[in-house]
């Protein structure tokens, strides 16, 4: 246990985890990867959403890990868990079956409609950078009730006017493709500058809150499109003492992800 940690300055990871955790009030099932999303869900379990369950892309449900997991498939997630599902069951019955309230995703790029690129920078056929690709992101986007995106770096390359490639489309692109979307797509984007939000089909992301000390102009300048701003712009409440204590003492005492 790292008892001295509470006096340290708030890191960007702590800020993002705390802010994301609060958005999970009232949620039951969250599809999340390792890292910031796990921290956010773990904190939410200890605060606003005691019953919230993480479903991992590896097929683990109801994990009770003895150690902080290093990957979504870490052996410590499996031993002592409540269920391990095969891939067809996980993606077919749980994800496409509509059992996920909130999916957490990251991406190299997100556009104003909440569409995501995790495939390439540059042209797909001759990319400047080949990124990992969809993994399950396309399914999380298409099937979760809503999606939260955490972007560590809010800049015009990550939030461009146009994606280099759309890997995981939101509902507006699905509609234009002639297919009725199921979920709301991205409803929250939590960045190091503030929070963008949209409610669902037909809406674009707008700035709803900034972190203390961050100006609207800063956020708009760091965004690749002409970012809309909510009428009632809020200031994000920084992590509370209690949140910081839980994150530092309970959730990630070795600061594996709270770097």
């Amino acid at each position: 246990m790292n008892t001295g940690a509470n006096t340290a300055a708030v890191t960007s990871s702590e800020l993002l985890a705390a802010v994301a955790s609060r958005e999970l009030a009232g949620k039951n099932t969250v599809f999340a990867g390792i890292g910031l999303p796990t921290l956010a869900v773990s904190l939410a379990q200890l605060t606003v959403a005691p019953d919230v369950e993480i479903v991992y892309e590896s097929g683990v449900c109801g994990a009770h890990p003895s150690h902080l997991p290093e990957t979504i498939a870490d052996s410590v997630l499996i031993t002592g868990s409540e269920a391990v599902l095969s891939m067809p069951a996980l993606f077919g019955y749980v994800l496409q079956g509509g059992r996920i309230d909130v999916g957490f995703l990251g991406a190299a790029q997100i556009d104003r409609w909440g569409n995501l690129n995790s495939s390439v920078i540059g042209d797909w056929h001759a990319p400047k950078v080949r990124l990992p690709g969809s993994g399950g992101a396309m399914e999380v986007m298409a099937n979760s009730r809503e999606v939260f995106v955490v972007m560590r770096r809010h800049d015009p390359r990550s939030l461009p006017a146009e994606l280099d490639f759309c890997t995981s489309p939101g509902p507006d692109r699905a509609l234009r493709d002639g297919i009725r979307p199921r979920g709301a797509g991205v409803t929250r984007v939590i960045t190091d500058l503030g929070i963008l939000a949209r409610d669902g089909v037909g809406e674009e992301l707008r700035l709803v809150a900034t972190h203390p000390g961050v100006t609207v102009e800063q956020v708009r300048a760091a965004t690749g499109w002409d970012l809309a701003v909510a009428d009632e712009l809020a200031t994000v409440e920084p992590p509370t003492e209690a949140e910081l204590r839980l994150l530092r003492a309970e959730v990630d005492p070795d600061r594996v992800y709270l770097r």
Partner: protein
Amino acid sequence: MHNPVAEPVRRPDKTTTMREAIAAHVTDGATVALEGFTHLIPTAAGHEIIRQGRRDLTVARMTADIVTDQLIAGGCVRKLVSSFVGNSTAGSLGELRRRIETGQPEPLEYEEYSHYGMICRYLAGAQRLPFYPLRSYAGSDVPSVNPGIRKVTSPYPGPDGEPEQIYVVPPLNPDVTIIHAQRADRAGNTQIWGLTGIQAEAAYAARKVIVVVEEVVADEVIRSDPNRTVVPAHAVDAVVECPRGAHPAFAQGYYDRDGDFYRGWSHISKDPERLQRWLDEWVRGTADHAEYLAKLGTEAQQRLSVGEAWSEPVNYGRRQ
């Protein structure tokens, strides 16, 4: 050893009584799936539906057998969706045949499939797909009496380079699925061994799920073997402990199939009055499954008891 992440998570306790589970989740006119392929048939749940006098149900069950005949005779069923209607290898279902062959005392709507047709309906239901393709039905008369079975043209050329057609079935999304299992924890993580059938898909396809178990066990028992969990807690709404609740079917490792009962059913169900008397005595005349079992007697239960054949444990490992 590090602190566990976010331990303990408080899990909701979903245990309840059979009476409450049926009252809460099975409503008149509902579509109710009762699954279990010979093994783990949710008989006790069917009896409680009869006791509560539910009406106009659409019952989905691949192998419509004794419990289905009883539900029909109990006046609960308007429509049956199934792929096999028979008393296993032991004869006929008297009430079902009367309803279909003579329409007496009232007709029964029947939607006929093959086993894989039903399986694919549950698969589509669990996956929230608009349809599921399968290589059955080509040339069968079943689609001519079941307009739900349709064709799709594949967007890929067939093996001969020509367009290829395939039959599809629509999703089945029961209002409630009821399954019987060996054990679950209070949150609903449900473990089955032996024949696992279509239980997982039938559960995931449903809006509500009732799991009836031989035993509610400690969380640690479930968590010692997570691969054994066939239906996870997030897909379960109610957990009912009801030992021997599958009788006359069997529960692998708990009790064997009551072959005498199966053979006897053909005789009971052949005569509508005898069948109603049976229901009055064994179902409507018992308050719950415990009374039904008491009536069955300890000797009969003894006869169905099984010996031991334990699985060899596997090591899930522990980080050191």
